[in-house]
């Protein structure tokens, strides 16, 4: 339906679109994602005909959109603009009726007008607003009114620029679900969407725009990766899977100037998971393990691409694993013992013995996690005496401190 073919657009000397190819079929909802200034809005403006590309073509259906009159173009493409602020005291029904402009002739009335406007209002759940002045609406209500206007336009192609930018979570979801439905009714929909998770959840495909190019496109889960966050958004982050929607969940982290130490995380469980996460987020080079297969800390480590040693469930830690972990601990500047479970052989304690600097984080009392009896307790206590003992939330700060003699910062 929409076919963008090697489109170049420059504003002055700035190349805003640098050879963009994209297709959107009827029934398909394609999301444009990418950082501010990547060229998403410019791309949308070339698709709806507002902007004529310097080179390349945009086809909507059979027609080159730039060869069409704006009336003909607006019968094919309806647009929901990014800026929906209206300074004029039009009624909502008037604004929605403006969507009928391409179907209206100057000297006769548009017979479908009333019915189309009513249907569009109903569809966007704005019927109750129809006699309100549009300049008195909230941003979210106005956004829906503009979607209604695009619906009244009755075009087979829909272009939306940040349709959820000013909406609360509920309305954002409602709106995207509506757009999804509109696509399912065999419209071709192209939308720039800032919220990556919403984009991934509702779109059939995502196109990642960066520096005026589409650097990747495909299924949301294939496009939204940690590397994509890094290259396109210059952001550190994690992409996991949202267990409820089964779509990618994106967590971005502030860029950091600290970190840079080698940290090994021993122990595991929820505490281990949070320590692995916070050390990674603080910019340290993290290794971890041994964790058992189903350990929460292991799945976090895997998500973050942190090298992790794994042991099969209910099995003793084998020799090879111990050696591998020992090497990592030897190479680490700091070893964090996160709520460790002491097994009969006190393997964790033996491994921690070699640590250059030791930090202990505890959330459960030792008795609950000690299977090594009195001997295990003693070994652990002696480790603890030379370690820095902190709360989990203090971990990034402690790691940034200069290594010093062991001292207890916090106790449980």
């Amino acid at each position, binding site marked *: 339906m929409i076919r963008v073919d090697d489109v170049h657009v420059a504003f002055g000397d700035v190349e805003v679109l640098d050879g963009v190819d994209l297709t959107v079929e009827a029934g398909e909802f394609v999301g444009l994602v990418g950082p501010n200034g990547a060229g998403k809005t410019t791309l949308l403006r070339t698709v709806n005909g507002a902007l004529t590309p310097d080179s390349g073509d945009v086809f909507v259906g059979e027609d080159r959109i730039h060869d069409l009159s704006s*009336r003909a173009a607006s019968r094919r493409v309806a*647009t929901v603009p990014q800026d929906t602020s209206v*300074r004029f005291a*039009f009624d909502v029904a008037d*604004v929605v009726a403006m969507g009928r*402009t391409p179907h209206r002739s100057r000297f006769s009335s548009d017979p479908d007008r009333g019915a189309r406007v009513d249907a569009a209002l109903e569809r966007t759940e704005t019927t109750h607003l129809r006699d309100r002045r549009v300049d008195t609406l909230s941003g979210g209500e106005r956004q829906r009114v503009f979607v209604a206007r695009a619906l009244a336009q009755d075009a087979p192609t829909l272009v939306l620029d940040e349709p959820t930018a000013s909406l609360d979570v509920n309305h954002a979801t409602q709106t995207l679900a509506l757009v999804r439905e509109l696509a399912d009714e065999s419209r071709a929909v192209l939308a720039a969407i800032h919220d990556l998770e919403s984009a991934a959840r509702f779109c059939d495909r995502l196109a990642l725009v960066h520096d005026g190019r589409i650097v990747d496109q495909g299924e949301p889960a294939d496009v939204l990766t940690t590397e994509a966050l890094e290259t396109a958004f210059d952001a550190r982050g994690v992409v996991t899977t949202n267990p409820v929607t089964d779509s990618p969940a994106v967590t971005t982290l502030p860029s950091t100037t600290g970190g840079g130490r080698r940290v090994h995380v021993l122990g595991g469980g929820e505490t281990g998971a949070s320590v692995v996460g916070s050390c990674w987020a603080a910019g340290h080079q993290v290794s971890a393990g041994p964790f058992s297969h189903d350990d929460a800390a292991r799945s976090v480590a895997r998500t973050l691409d942190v090298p992790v040693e794994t042991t099969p469930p209910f099995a003793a830690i084998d020799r090879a694993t111990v050696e591998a972990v020992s090497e990592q601990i030897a190479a680490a500047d700091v070893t964090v013992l996160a709520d460790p479970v002491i097994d009969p052989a006190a393997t964790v304690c033996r491994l921690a013995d070699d640590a250059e600097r030791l930090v202990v984080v505890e959330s459960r009392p030792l008795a609950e996690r000690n299977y090594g009896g009195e001997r295990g307790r003693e070994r652990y206590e002696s480790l603890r005496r030379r370690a820095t003992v902190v709360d989990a939330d203090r971990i990034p700060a402690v790691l940034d401190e200069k290594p010093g003699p062991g001292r207890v910062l916090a106790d449980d």
Partner: protein
Amino acid sequence: MESPPRAPVLLGLGAALVATVLASATVGPVSIDLLTVSKAALNAVGVPAGLSVGVGTTRIFGASVPLPSVSLRYAYPFSFAVADSSETIVRQIRLPRIVLGAIVGFALAAAGTVMQGFFRNPLADPSIIGVSSGAAVGAVAAIVFAVGLPLQAMAFAGAILAAFAVYLVATRDGETPVATLLLAGVAIQTFLGAVISYMLVHAGESLERAVYWLMGHLQNSTWSEVEVTLPAAFLAFAVLHAYAHDLNVLLMGEEDAHALGIEVERTKRILLAVASVITAAAVAVAGVIGFVGLVVPHVLRLIVGPDHRILLPASALAGATFLVAADTLARSGPAEVPVGIVTAAVGAPFFLYLLRRKEVHTV
């Protein structure tokens, strides 16, 4: 707020205009009662009854030009018995002035409404693209240098030339950004202001006449001025009115208007040209009458809302009424003052009152 229904509003404003016209015609050195005025006015109502084609002298803005002419023959359906003196005063002295005032007010308010919508700027008025300054240069030149061409023709030509110059300066690659247009208008107005001042300095004895023209006036109006101005104003208004919906959509912003199927640049060109013509037609016969085109659209926007399908005709009718009333005031004092002084002196305080009471800060 739902837009008020169109028909009652326009009928009401039309009735107010007729009432004002009749009331105005009773005022003057000789007081004539309303009934007599009404009869005399009805007697003056002519309906086109046919065309006569021939070679004759056509009067264009007061000048006799021999041209092949097509002229309308009028039939006068009413013939009430009215005293000759009263009939002459009403029909030959007061009514031409009052009717011309109504047309000028109608034209200026319509042009002002279009300009404010077009520029999405509350300060826009009909003269914003240099029309009034251009007219003033033409008129003052005609007065000061006695060039031999009729003043109204010079003023009209000056107005159109100035508007066209502003348009050309502001247009690049077929696009006319309104911000550029606004600034180009200001620059050209300033330049033309200098030209006018220079001419006034060298005006000598004709200075008083020139200054009087500049203030805006309806004195010595004739039916022949009405005959030229009326069709021009109504024709231009009909075009503007046909574009009322497009103006509404343009208020949403040009990019949005384009996405809704408006040929933005073409529509802007048409609106600009027609609004310039309607303004020029008014200014050419009445001089620079300020404030009608600025205040009346604002007031009506407060009352009927921003929809140009009702706002444009409502403003035009109210502008006509306002100018007739202002001119009645201008000529009813002991010494007649130019109507431009009255419109500004009455309009400005009223506008300030509105500004304090309600929001007039948006178009």
